[in-house]
């Protein structure tokens, strides 16, 4: 069988090897799909913002609905102070969504199914949010680890738990997205393999399962992008509005 279910996650070089110093920054299939995602995002939103007609056409409606969707998500979770970070969260949401959705096309590569990609995004968010928190509140930002209304006896324990939970944010954020994408795609590949191995007689069952899984995976692709963006908003909310 040609299909090892994990072989779809293989990264391979496209074109020559590019080395900068000791680092290999060759153009790979991952790079190709990152570029495809960003180019299609820019294309769609450029087309959607070109003309300003009172009655928007389909692509303009798509762009404007996405805009209002993300802006509503940010204002709902992080309040009006998060306005300056709208462009970043919008780009993040769109990037993750398009990478996930591109992965749903057969024979494509899912950029977000690689832990290193999601971890870089999550680490950038984590560092950015922490820096914003310290800039806005100074050392008062450390109050985040000391919830109010906790008995003094429990306080040392709670603070340790809070710090661990804060530090595990980038890991949970990145692993959530990566694991969801990888698991879903592996499942689909496995069931696809069953269709071949069971043949015309028994292949219908895994095929129907595969069809159902495709629908589920499209939902997951959207949902994980949404979760990624909304968790970013929540972390940003912690940094901007210190509630503890």
């Amino acid at each position: 069988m040609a299909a090892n279910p994990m072989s779809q996650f293989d990264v391979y070089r496209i074109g020559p090897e590019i080395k900068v110093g000791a680092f290999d920054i060759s153009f790979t299939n991952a790079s190709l799909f990152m570029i495809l995602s960003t180019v299609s995002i820019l294309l769609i939103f450029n087309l959607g913002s070109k003309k300003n007609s009172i009655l928007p056409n389909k692509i303009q409606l798509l762009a404007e609905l996405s805009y209002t969707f993300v802006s509503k998500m940010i204002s709902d979770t992080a309040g009006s102070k998060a306005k300056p970070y709208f462009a970043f969260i919008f780009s993040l949401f769109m990037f993750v969504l398009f990478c996930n959705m591109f992965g749903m096309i057969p024979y494509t590569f899912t950029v977000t199914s690689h832990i290193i990609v999601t971890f870089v995004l999550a680490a950038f968010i984590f560092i950015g949010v922490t820096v914003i928190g310290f800039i806005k509140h100074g050392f008062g930002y450390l109050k985040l680890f000391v919830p109010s209304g906790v008995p003094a006896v429990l306080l040392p324990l709670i603070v340790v738990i809070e710090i661990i939970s804060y530090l595990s944010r980038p890991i949970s954020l990145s692993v959530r997205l990566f694991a969801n994408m990888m698991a879903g795609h592996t499942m689909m590949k496995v069931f696809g393999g069953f269709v071949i191995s069971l043949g015309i007689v028994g292949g219908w069952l895994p095929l129907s399962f595969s069809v159902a899984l495709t629908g589920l995976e499209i939902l997951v692709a959207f949902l994980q992008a949404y979760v990624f963006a909304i968790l970013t908003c929540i972390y940003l909310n912690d940094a901007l509005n210190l509630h503890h």
Partner: protein
Amino acid sequence: MVKKIYFQSIFFSFFFIKEAFAAESGGMPQLNPEFWVSQIFWLILTFGVMYLVLSKLILPKISNNLESRKSQILENIEAAEKQREDSDAKLKEYDEIISKSKLEANSIFNQAREKALKDIGAKREVLDKQIDNEIAEAEKEIDALRKNAPDKINKIAIETSSELLQKLIGAEVNNSSISAIVDDLSKRNGDKYYGN
């Protein structure tokens, strides 16, 4: 039955994954650090470019479009409201004009009627006066005629009777004696003839 096969197939799929992991020399390709730097580099490059283009060029345009549409819709609504108010005011004005003109028409009609009635009254009075005058004149004439009538009749009676007598008798009769008889008769029978 179908359910059982479904769950069996899911169960087998996990076997398959385990086998795949065992068979794979490098395990998960995600954990192979060969292309990590390349992925990080391209991620930062593509995401950075996309972020810059979106935040500097495209998102402000979309936000601008949304704002301008919102303001235009609000403006249109305001304009429509204003025009509605205008038309309401005009309708009121129009109603006022109509009621005013109705009143005016009524008053003009009343005036005209009064005037006509007055005219009719005046003309009737004049006519009444004329008619009265004419009646009075006619009565006067009749009176005069009535007064003169016995004399004339008397005269005719005298002349006739004198001529009659002359033809019958053939002799001249004294007019004065005849007239005395006629006067006497007419005085006696006057009431019978003229019955006033």
